[in-house]
């Protein structure tokens, strides 16, 4: 049987998805695609990431190769201009003709540009394609101010694009009385406005634009209320207009307000022609999101393969990060009393607004809005869609369980099998769980590859991961968070066991609680536990330490080491600076200022380390523990001693704190910061603990970090005195040392903690676990037993002997070490 021709008009996200779906389902069709744009289908959902570094290639959803491999004919930059329904032939711009058995219209939509005098002026843009973005980019370089017309979802995205383009003064102009009128309520809008204002996005509501000002180029907007706004550029994002021209031309049924009318199989008024995506009108509604578009592609592809799948409308719940602010709305977000009971939580300080609408009997969740913190979105959406009976205190759903008791609401494992987890790819919980069991999958990547779950917008990734772990646990495959194959304990369990049994060496720990001969995972983890508990010199058990700890320096490319003396608070005398310079010269070291206000000396041969440290120690330096999972630095701004804005002496406090916690071994590195005023020059909120001066004392923030997943520290206590601050820090740090998994920074530790910050606050401030005294005592012990490791190492001939490359030629340096020169200093040879 000859293959049937399926012609697809449009190569956008939905058109491409249709090709994927149909190819996966059947070989009986010959696909021919005509796209108006010159590019292969790309991700329009994340379009604004084009301005923060993503390339057109990154955004691309497929490759020419993929189309070739699947034997799909793809014609880009060639729009279909005419459809002859009697002959079943399409004609294209370039003059091609193509016969079809089935025609799929996936032409999408165009930006709606309101009929306002002056919209044709230079400097006015729409926000839809990569070409639009390129044009904006070219124009933006000379612009100081810009605005987006339209405060909907896409408008705010465009606002972010303007910020990313470096436009200093940015505005959002909205006709309605609130932002994102379809998704969020007035209170939510108000809060979102506040958040946007912090980012320099000024919002103007209730603004009816009457004309675009300027000669040839835009100079501003005039509004119906008589006011004006001066501008260098304008992006119009006032909604979408379905691209239904081709359907109108060939006489298909269309709506007067736009959109090709389709039935539940995505069939138009001509049974061999289908419309999917934003050009299709189902039940008098255009679905302007990608997930329903994908569902339509699935339905149409299924129909061609003789399956009777139907489109039943689509849940328009959304969650997105707008300019760094979480915004989500789900279910019936706007239903209000007396038809339901709404629970509203608002924290204007942190910029969080949450509203959930529950049935009057308190049993079911109907919908809601989350702004500023949408972590609970997936669970809430599932709870709504699956009509899961609510816990007795439904407010826990948005507030988190308080008082450190039990977990919040239902868990992801409690969902029914047909719960839709990934709405982009329509993957259910059942599909994910059975993939894990039947195909023996263990990681998210494996599951993603196999089921496609999480490959669309990525919003469901945390849930998919929870499902994988949950399923593995239920099947006894995943036991628990064990250290490694040699220990069936978590770090916290092992720490408690070692402490209770007062064990001091790794071998004893392995003999008593482990099996096998250990490895590079459990050795340093146990070494860290032993150091945290007993604070004994780590060099006494040097071979269980990671290389850096074993040689008290950081191994670098080429096998040389770097040396970082402690410079508490970043304060250093000229004499000490000179010594560092002299040492660096003598041993031919590369010097660089570190991010933590210290000086790093690179390129030291192993055999030179003791001599280098002798000189540094003679000059009054101590080990900086840059090599250890331990306290690194407490960064400070100059504070009230010199700065005209400084409220307190941040340097002295930083030094006091750095000296207090130096040498503290912890599950991962620890960094701190102290700022003398709200300007926060020490960037303390990006640290594991950050202290910021206030008029009345200090604000203490905890659990922040930079790194691959930056996270700001959260406020633990405000306006506290130095003594209280230190007491809370003692408790916080020891609690972290005692309970975190290996190589887990404080931020991750907090993120995984049941009850989160509320719980941690309770433990540290209210002593809810009754362990505060013990934690403080442990910290006192640590402080009283501190000794500089390098001082101990160079004074002990046995230990000193270990710093040689060749055991049978101790004076000789590693001949394989090679340096190159760059900007008058050495650099390691490239590997």
């Amino acid at each position, binding site marked *: 049987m000859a293959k049937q021709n399926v012609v697809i008009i449009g190569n956008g996200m939905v058109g491409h998805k249709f090709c994927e779906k149909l190819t996966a389902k059947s070989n009986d069709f010959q696909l021919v695609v005509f796209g108006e744009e010159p590019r292969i289908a790309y991700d329009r959902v994340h379009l604004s990431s084009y301005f923060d570094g993503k390339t057109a290639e990154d955004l691309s959803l497929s490759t020419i190769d993929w189309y070739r491999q699947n034997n799909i004919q793809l014609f880009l930059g060639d729009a279909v201009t005419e459809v002859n329904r009697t002959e079943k032939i399409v004609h294209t711009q370039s003059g091609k003709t193509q016969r079809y058995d089935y025609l799929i219209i996936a032409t999408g939509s165009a930006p709606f540009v309101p009929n306002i005098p002056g919209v044709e002026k230079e400097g006015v843009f729409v926000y839809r394609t990569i070409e639009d973005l390129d044009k904006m980019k070219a124009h933006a370089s000379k612009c100081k101010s810009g605005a987006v017309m339209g405060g909907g979802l896409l408008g705010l995205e465009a606002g972010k694009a303007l910020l990313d383009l470096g436009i200093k003064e940015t505005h959002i102009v909205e006709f309605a009385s609130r932002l994102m009128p379809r998704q969020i309520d007035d209170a939510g809008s108000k809060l979102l406005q506040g958040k946007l204002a912090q980012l320099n996005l000024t919002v103007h509501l209730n603004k009816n634009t009457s004309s675009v000002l300027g000669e040839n180029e835009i100079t501003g907007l005039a509004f119906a209320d008589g006011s004006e706004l001066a501008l260098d550029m304008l992006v119009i994002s006032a909604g979408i207009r379905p691209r239904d021209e081709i359907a109108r031309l060939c006489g298909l049924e269309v709506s007067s307000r736009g959109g090709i009318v389709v039935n539940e199989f995505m069939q138009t008024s001509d049974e061999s022609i289908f419309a999917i995506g934003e050009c299709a009108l189902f039940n008098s509604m255009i679905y302007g999101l990608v997930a329903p578009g994908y569902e339509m592609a699935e339905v149409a592809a299924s129909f061609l393969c003789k399956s009777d799948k139907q489109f039943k409308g689509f849940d328009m719940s959304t969650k997105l990060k707008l300019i760094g602010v979480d915004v989500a709305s789900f279910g019936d977000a706007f239903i209000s009393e007396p038809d339901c009971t709404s629970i509203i939580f608002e924290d204007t300080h942190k910029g969080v607004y949450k509203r959930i609408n529950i049935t009057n009997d308190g049993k079911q969740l109907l919908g809601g809005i989350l702004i500023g913190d949408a972590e609970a979105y997936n669970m809430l959406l599932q709870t709504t869609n699956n009509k899961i009976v609510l816990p007795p205190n439904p407010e826990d759903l948005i507030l988190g369980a308080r008082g450190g008791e039990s977990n919040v609401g239902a868990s992801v494992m409690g969902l029914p099998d047909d719960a839709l987890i990934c709405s982009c790819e329509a993957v259910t919980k059942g599909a994910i769980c059975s993939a894990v069991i039947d195909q023996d999958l263990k990681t998210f990547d494996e599951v993603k590859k196999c089921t496609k779950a999480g490959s669309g917008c990525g919003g469901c990734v945390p849930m998919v991961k929870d499902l994988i772990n949950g399923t593995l646990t239920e099947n006894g495959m995943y036991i628990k968070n064990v250290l490694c*194959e*040699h220990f069936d304990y978590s770090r916290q369990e092992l720490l408690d066991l070692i402490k209770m049994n007062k064990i001091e060496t790794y*071998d004893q720990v*392995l003999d008593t609680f482990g099996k*096998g*001969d*250990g*490895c*590079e995972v*459990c*050795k*340093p983890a146990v070494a860290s536990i032993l150091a945290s508990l007993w604070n004994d010199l780590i060099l006494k058990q*040097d*071979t*269980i330490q*990671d*290389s*850096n700890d*074993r*040689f008290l320096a950081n*191994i670098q*490319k*080429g*096998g040389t080491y770097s040396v970082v003396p402690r410079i508490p608070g970043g304060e250093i005398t000229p004499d000490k600076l000179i010594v560092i310079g002299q040492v660096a010269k003598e041993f031919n070291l590369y010097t660089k200022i570190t991010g933590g206000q210290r000086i790093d000396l690179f390129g030291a041969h192993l055999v030179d380390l003791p001599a280098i440290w002798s000189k540094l120690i003679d000059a009054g330096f101590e080990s900086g523990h840059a090599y250890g999972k331990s306290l690194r630095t407490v960064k400070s701004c100059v504070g009230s001693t010199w700065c005209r804005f400084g409220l307190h002496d941040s340097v002295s406090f930083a030094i006091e704190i750095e000296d207090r916690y130096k040498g503290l071994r912890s599950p991962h590195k620890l960094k701190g910061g102290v700022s003398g005023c709200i300007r926060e020059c020490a960037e303390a909120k990006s640290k594991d603990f950050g202290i910021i001066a206030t008029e009345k004392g200090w604000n203490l923030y905890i659990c922040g970090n930079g790194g691959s997943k930056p996270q700001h520290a959260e406020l633990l206590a405000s306006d506290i005195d130095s003594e209280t601050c230190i007491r809370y820090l003692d408790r916080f740090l020891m609690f972290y040392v005692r309970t975190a998994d290996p190589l887990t920074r404080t931020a991750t530790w907090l993120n995984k903690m049941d009850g989160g910050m509320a719980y941690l606050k309770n433990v540290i401030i209210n002593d809810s676990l009754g362990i505060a005294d013990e934690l403080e005592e442990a910290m006192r012990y640590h402080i009283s037993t501190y000794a500089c490791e390098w001082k101990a190492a160079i004074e002990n001939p046995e230990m000193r002997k*270990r710093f040689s*490359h*060749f*055991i*049978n*030629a101790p004076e*000789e340096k*590693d001949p*394989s*070490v090679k340096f190159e020169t760059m900007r008058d200093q050495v650099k390691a040879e490239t*590997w």
Partner: protein
Amino acid sequence: MSEIIELNREIEKLQGAEDLFFACYSDDVPQNGGVCVKYKNEQIAIFNFTRRGEWYATQNMCPHKQQMALSRGMIGSSGEDCEPKVACPFHKKSFSLKTGDCLTGEEYKIKTFPVTVSGGKVFITVTNV
């Protein structure tokens, strides 16, 4: 020195090998750890696996990034049959101390050498250097 030569001969006789190289004293090598010895222009890593009462020697260079580092790596075991291994300190690529096979799934292989310990001295058979 004469002592060593004598001992050398003795062991050579014992093993019928002629290329036994005296590397170091056994107490030069930390317990459950390694050191690097220089043999002509080669670097050889020696491991004192005290926990198992075993000694191993391998090339010192990690084949992943050609770094002279394996002697500074942590040793341990892996799997049901407790394959002895060393993990490179740079990127934790692991190698069997017995066979030299890479245990972290890459196509690398390192050279291994027989080790003989006698009278507090460590010898390596260096036929294939």
